[in-house]
């Protein structure tokens, strides 16, 4: 199978990669581009560990073909923190102890970023609904929801 060249913008940088048609974006991010912060939990779109933002939309990168990234802009967990340090969502996850094992954390943070980008003032119910596609098995979600709501407040006040 011939490899296909793909040009995309990943975390603000122009990237060119070669992929096979049957490779997912998740596989290329992790195995070809070394961006292993995006995690594989189920590879079927049911857990959210592989969340990335694709042209502004939250997606499961396990359900996107790498070739579909042509001309697109992608934000992964590696692109969430700014030049001056952690994003407020990341900071609040730490302060609230909103992670235990940490495997779902990148997916949650990317999903929370997408949520707050389009809804800066979510209610608890809205946050829970938006994050329902992200599974966490350690925390019972309590501290995650608190961290996201607290981050929303911080972002609104800055």
């Amino acid at each position, binding site marked *: 199978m011939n490899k296909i060249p793909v040009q995309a913008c990943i975390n603000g940088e122009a990237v060119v990669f070669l992929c*096979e048609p*049957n*490779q997912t974006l998740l*596989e290329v991010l*992790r*195995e070809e581009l*070394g*961006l*292993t*912060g*995006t*995690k*594989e*939990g*189920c*590879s*079927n779109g*049911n*857990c959210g*560990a592989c969340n990335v933002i694709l042209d502004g939309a939250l997606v499961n990168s396990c359900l996107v073909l790498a070739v579909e990234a042509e001309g697109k802009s992608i934000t*992964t*967990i*590696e692109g*969430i*923190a700014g030049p001056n340090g*952690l994003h407020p969502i*990341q900071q609040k*996850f*730490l*302060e*609230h*102890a909103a*992670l*235990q*094992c*940490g*495997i*779902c*954390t*990148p997916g949650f*943070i990317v999903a929370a970023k997408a949520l707050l980008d389009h809804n800066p003032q979510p209610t608890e119910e809205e*946050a*829970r*609904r938006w*994050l*329902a*596609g*992200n*599974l*966490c*098995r*350690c*925390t*019972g*979600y*309590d*501290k*995650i*929801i*608190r961290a996201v709501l607290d981050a929303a407040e911080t972002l609104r006040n800055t």
Partner: protein
Amino acid sequence: MSSATPTIEKPPYRVVGTRPIRPDGVDKVTGRAIFGADVRLSGLLHGRVLRSPHAHARIKSIDTRAAEALPGVKAVVTGHDFPDPQNKVAASGEGTVNLRSLAHNCIARDKVLYFGHAVAAVAATTPNIAEEALKLITVEYELLPHVLDVREAMRPDAPLLHDDLRTNEMGQRAETPSNIANHTRHERGDVNQAFAEAAVVVEREFRTSMVHQGYIEPQNGTALWNADGQISVWCSTQAPFDERNQLAEILGMPVSKIKVTPTEIGGGFGGKLSVFLEPLAAMLSKKAGHRPVKMAMNRAEVLAATAPTSGSYIRVKIGADKNGCIVAAQAWMVYEAGAFPGSPVDAGAGVIFAPYRIPNVLIDAYDVVVNKPRAGAYRAPGATNAAFASESVIDELAEKLGIDPLEFRILNGAKEGDRRADGPVYKRIGFIETAQAAKAHPHYSAPLAPSRLDPEGKNPAIKRGRGVAAGFWFNWGGKSSAWASLNPDGTVSLIEGSPDIGGSRASIAMQLAESLGVRAEDVKPAVVDTDSVGYNDATGGSRVTFGTGWVAWRLGEKLKQQLKARAALLWEVTPDQVKAEAGVFSCNGRSITLKELAGKLDETGGPIVASDTFESDEYGPGFGVHIVDLEVDTETGKVQILRYTAAQDVGTAIHPAYVEGQLQGGVAQGIGWALNEEFVYDAQGHLLNASFLDYRIPTALDLPMIDTVLVEVPNPGHPYGVRGVGETPIVPPAGAVANAIYHAIGARMTALPMSPARILEAQGKA
């Protein structure tokens, strides 16, 4: 959030009880932390596993030639490539594992014993080529009759999984082969007479389905069998040292040739105590010309072929006198071991009546093999099944006696000096305090939480109820080793061997910081490989903050002693004249800070390091008492959790945020088990719901905030009063939810999960 009810005044700690940011936190929120599947080595190959499509079959032949010929394929292995270990038992988590069973579970030899059992493995240059190669392997099977239900498996005419398995009864092996691997009995007093004399007796039978730990990170492992015979393995494991032993036996290599590097681990809950892929990756690496091989399961493999925990059949009978005192309790418990012996039924038998003082007891426990994956540990293994049964019956007894359910538990609750149902006498425990804390919590006196489905209260189909339940877990001490070195800037590098699965780097570092007198941030912990630190038992059994924390405390004390000697040298006094308090060393009006002293290491004799290894039995069991409000849509059978409060005897909370997190996480898993989680097999023994779509763990939208009550009854057997915390919180939820459903709809649920279909059925609606 949470409230703490200290029952004993704590010493004025400076670090213990605070909430610092965890040392590995930034790496985990930025995606930089290296989990098992993130390991990348040069020349890396990718391995995949061919799995049995049958529940029980003899392997007549395996033809791997076509797979080997596929371009990109570098090696194929089958069971024939592995030595056959003896029946030998080794440590695994708190318990033991039969290495021959484990070897045969990693890759089948002459028979496959469950759907998903590994049959062959391939290493290739890409995961997709390895996947395609699997389709080219031809396996000829002779189908054998299978058995999925434990009680059917116990029958003398049931299909046998193992021709050589004979029932063990406390060291005595039965004459004839059977699927009953083990029978245990606890007996005290005379239950028959006590039941005959009891004022109220309740007896019920319960069933629970096989469930999975559901960690989000699939099993994985990368192995390099080097040309010099040294084997390096990187993997997500709770137990690097146990895995090293297991690999040695399965590969037929000495332990000294094997190094296991535990990566960051994405959840385990007891499911990552033993090897699955690692031996296959190692053998593939050897056969592929000593190239490293990475293997990772997909979710379907995780669910079908790892170590879920037992489904069970349990009969419970409890009697009380007219004053509400329990006089007798009996249980008959059968747990699915899966394909190889070793279900947690004995633990279930140990916990089933543990919160209560009961004079007459009879418990029979059976470990039974069936054609399902080998059952493993899952957070307080065996206990949730047991407590679901016993706490349902306790609730019914309290109701029949007209006694408040928490009052009934307090009345019969076990205290120091009382005898456990399985024999030994309790030392200092905090069950009564925990039950009282739950009873005193505002949740227990508040009106039922408002409905989510029907906020205006117009729909008569929506019924609400409240339930309570208690739970117990033994906890464990185990062996820990660690070492520490003082840096010239006054910080400490702490080298430990306990994989950090939920924030233990923080709680261990804090204990060293407290004893040495530095800030939590001044201790830099690292979890290292099996060559770089002394032996550590598994991260499991709620032991790490207790056991490894104890070692960290000792390291701090040892460093402090050496620093006193250095200060004494500076001041020309004897070390015992030097006092150390909160990181300041003083003597006769002179003082020096730890930081300053650390800066003078070179001029006072060179570096300071300390190492320690330790095992303690003073771990102390934990009790939980939970309260839940829920609503039932009686027309659809769906249950919505409205409010939840978990009280637990946690000893001293070193890092309260992570203690709360343990309680909240355990509750969430318990609720999932209670309501929706189950393995669904078809009649042929195929697992039908091997995905996170259909194996339904709770989402954020399914749960409310989970209140915690940390009842701090310090454990006298630990320098900071630590008890194990992690496992107890999964024990009460199923019972609490069952009791709340009863109070909502008036039907006793006797099977897990209490799924909508079952709730409709219990009401006679479908």
